[in-house]
């Protein structure tokens, strides 16, 4: 078992802009030998209009997209937690992403900023 301090040192963050095209959330698919625990996702409204956001997994086969969260409503001035009202904690992952898998997001219009916090089971 990893203790909390070890996990805290491993917490990393990605911040990307989602558009109406599928946008990769991580820089690359998770390395095959690792498991990535997503512990927080936040989407910021664009200050203009209410938008809908989809979050998907691209499976290891490189072609299959699996929907994780469809049509997340984000009001213009809102900061939305995904899943809704998720309680953030380093030992409380909202998604477990296996090696070879990538996460994608896209909007139904406009560009929205998403922040993802995660840690990997190995360095």
């Amino acid at each position, binding site marked *: 078992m990893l203790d909390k301090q*070890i996990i805290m*040192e*491993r917490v990393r963050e990605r911040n990307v802009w989602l558009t109406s095209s599928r946008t990769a959330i991580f820089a690359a698919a998770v390395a095959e030998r690792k498991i990535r625990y997503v512990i927080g996702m936040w989407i910021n409204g664009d200050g203009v209009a209410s938008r809908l956001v989809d979050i998907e997994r691209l499976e290891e086969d490189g072609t299959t997209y699996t929907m994780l969260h469809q049509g997340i409503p984000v009001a213009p001035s809102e900061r939305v937690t995904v899943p809704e009202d998720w309680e953030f904690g380093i030992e409380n992952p909202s998604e477990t992403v296996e090696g070879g898998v990538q996460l994608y997001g896209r909007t139904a219009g406009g560009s929205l900023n998403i922040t993802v916090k995660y840690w990997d089971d190995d*360095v």
Partner: protein
Amino acid sequence: MDLLGIVPIRQKFLQKNYLFGLEFREGWIFGRTTRVRVCQYKPYPVIDANGTTVDINASSFQTALRLRDSRNTENDILYLEDYTHSGYAWFYHGALGIKPQFVNAYPRFPEEKDLPGKFPELDPIRPSSGDDLGYINSLNSPYEEPTDHLEIVITPKQHIGIEYYNKDASYRHQPVLHILFCLYWAQIFNDATYTNIIRRIALREIPASFFTAGFGEYPVEMEDKLKKEWGVDGKEGRYSPMSLSDAAKLGGR
């Protein structure tokens, strides 16, 4: 660290008047501690020969460094210049804790020679590639609690060198060590006076700690000068390093 067989090094430190066997390439010598001093250097941010902080780039290697005292980089913290002190043999026994978890440390002892943890049938360990064996890191020897995952015994006139590899693909890291050792002054049992006690240690009839000088395929050699200074040169009725079988036979048993 609650893994069976890996314990905090402080649990293995000897007290005064504890018995031990110390293995060199030539064989075993035996003795008891007369004086014990815990020596701790914490935190020890790793520095180079110039005293400059070592901050290793992401996915990069740091060549071997001695553990130099930042207050005077001429001094190697774990080096013993004299063979004896106060009329006793002396040597270090301890371990290193390390942080952060992204840095692997590859100690070589003697310096530039053996690495620990090599599987006998595998090719040589390559610290420069960040090989995933033969290292200590903060998971097997945590900074706050150095363990016997790598138990180090350093005899006089020996340096230890350590290479490092930063496994983090994104960030630079500076290795920080916790140097936790015991310095033992020891009476070496070196003639017929101690036949009985040596035999009983070898037969495991009385409690004694077993140490190994070095952690490679073989223990380090005991140079002639050290044998002489520690009185185990095999001359004038003195013992020389021996096998455990020979030790068990002492006294005609």
